């Protein structure tokens, strides 16, 4: 989208430092929701037809369940998630002081399991981590994304941005080639979106289940025949952080539906 580039450049020129060349300006950012057909939108809009809500409800049950050798539930420490977890997912991945690096929401939940519940960490992409994460992120639905504002995250956001711009794989394509330069076009008939990470974890009709943002990123990498980063790899966390900071100000939608 040469036009966005021009607009972005013009804004940069005007002296607003937040926008990097090639980035989509705030008022032109569009969630994957706006690229979907009316039926899929309706499915997301109505909680009784949104299959992601079943995962959220399961997450709420887990939230209240005592576990681990500490025999504590999430609720024992965090109380009512509606207030304690409100807006939390909108600023993840967040900087962890002890680890001196950003952690994703899933990693944070697992840190609570190991450090505070004395329980084993839940495997990436397992049903339990997805439902807990969906329940926590659902408390941010409608709240504007603020991830990446912590200045300690700056080098990691930059790492993610570099990875986003890096061509890779046998097909030699970068994220930006599809999601900045060609959104609204069709790849073998399906619309390409701006890769806004607003709805995760989300229910993908193709997966027939809930999945994490990492799962989505790994499948884009596999699509260009690149070696996907392992779940939780620092590179994947950096990409996730960059995408979230690139979506600053957009409302969270968890649990979204995507085709």
């Amino acid at each position, binding site marked *: 989208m040469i036009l966005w580039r021009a607009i972005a450049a013009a804004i940069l020129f005007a002296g607003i430092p937040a926008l990097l060349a090639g980035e989509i300006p705030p008022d032109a950012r569009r969630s994957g929701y706006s690229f979907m057909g009316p039926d899929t939108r309706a499915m997301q809009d109505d909680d009784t037809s949104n299959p992601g809500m079943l995962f959220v409800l399961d997450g709420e049950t887990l939230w209240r369940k005592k576990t681990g050798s500490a025999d504590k539930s999430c609720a024992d420490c965090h109380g009512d998630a509606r207030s304690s977890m409100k807006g939390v997912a909108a600023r993840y991945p967040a900087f962890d002081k002890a680890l001196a690096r950003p952690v994703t929401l899933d990693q944070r939940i697992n840190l609570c399991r190991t450090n505070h519940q004395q329980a084993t960490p839940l495997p990436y992409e397992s049903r339990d981590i997805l439902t807990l994460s969906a329940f926590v992120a659902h408390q941010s639905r409608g709240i504007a994304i603020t991830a990446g504002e912590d200045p300690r995250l700056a080098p990691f956001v930059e790492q993610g941005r570099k990875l986003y711009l*890096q*061509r*890779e*794989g*046998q*097909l*030699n*394509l970068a994220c930006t*080639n599809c999601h900045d*330069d*060609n959104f609204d*076009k*069709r*790849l*073998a*008939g399906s619309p*390409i979106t701006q890769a806004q990470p607003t709805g995760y974890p989300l229910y993908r009709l193709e997966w027939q289940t809930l999945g994490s943002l990492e799962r989505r990123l790994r499948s884009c990498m*596999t699509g260009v*025949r*690149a*070696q*996907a980063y392992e779940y939780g790899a620092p590179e994947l966390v950096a990409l996730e952080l960059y995408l979230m900071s690139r979506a600053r100000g957009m409302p969270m939608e968890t649990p979204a539906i995507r085709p």
Partner: protein
Amino acid sequence: MARSTVCIVATLASLALASHTRADGLVPYTIVGDGIADSLTGMPGDAARGRALVLARTTTCILCHSGPFPETRFQGDLAPDLSGAGTRWSTSQLRLRLVDASHFNPDTIMPSYYRTDGLVRVGRNFTGKPILSATEIEDIVAFLATLRD
């Protein structure tokens, strides 16, 4: 350091042993002007096989391109329609375009189908292999040449 030494030794060895295949397993070709005049296999391609290849999702062309393919709705619009490609381009230009599209446009998103160098983080199942074989390139070139306005 060690790696590049091994690499040079391997290259020298293969130069000495087999002058017809390169160290990367690709057959050598010569770019003249903006094309590759000679068939990569030394033989003409099969246009019917080429059409089937272009339509196959794993070949990836119609992820980006559309063309005269009434049998499928799943075509892309990231790239020009292939109809008339055989009128717009010579066979040798089409061959070079498939081998290395970046020759025509350094920023192109079109993959280079017969190249293994200069790539980053290639998936384990694909490392060291070009996207298409020399025979497949020739079949597709033969097919594209039939797409005349």
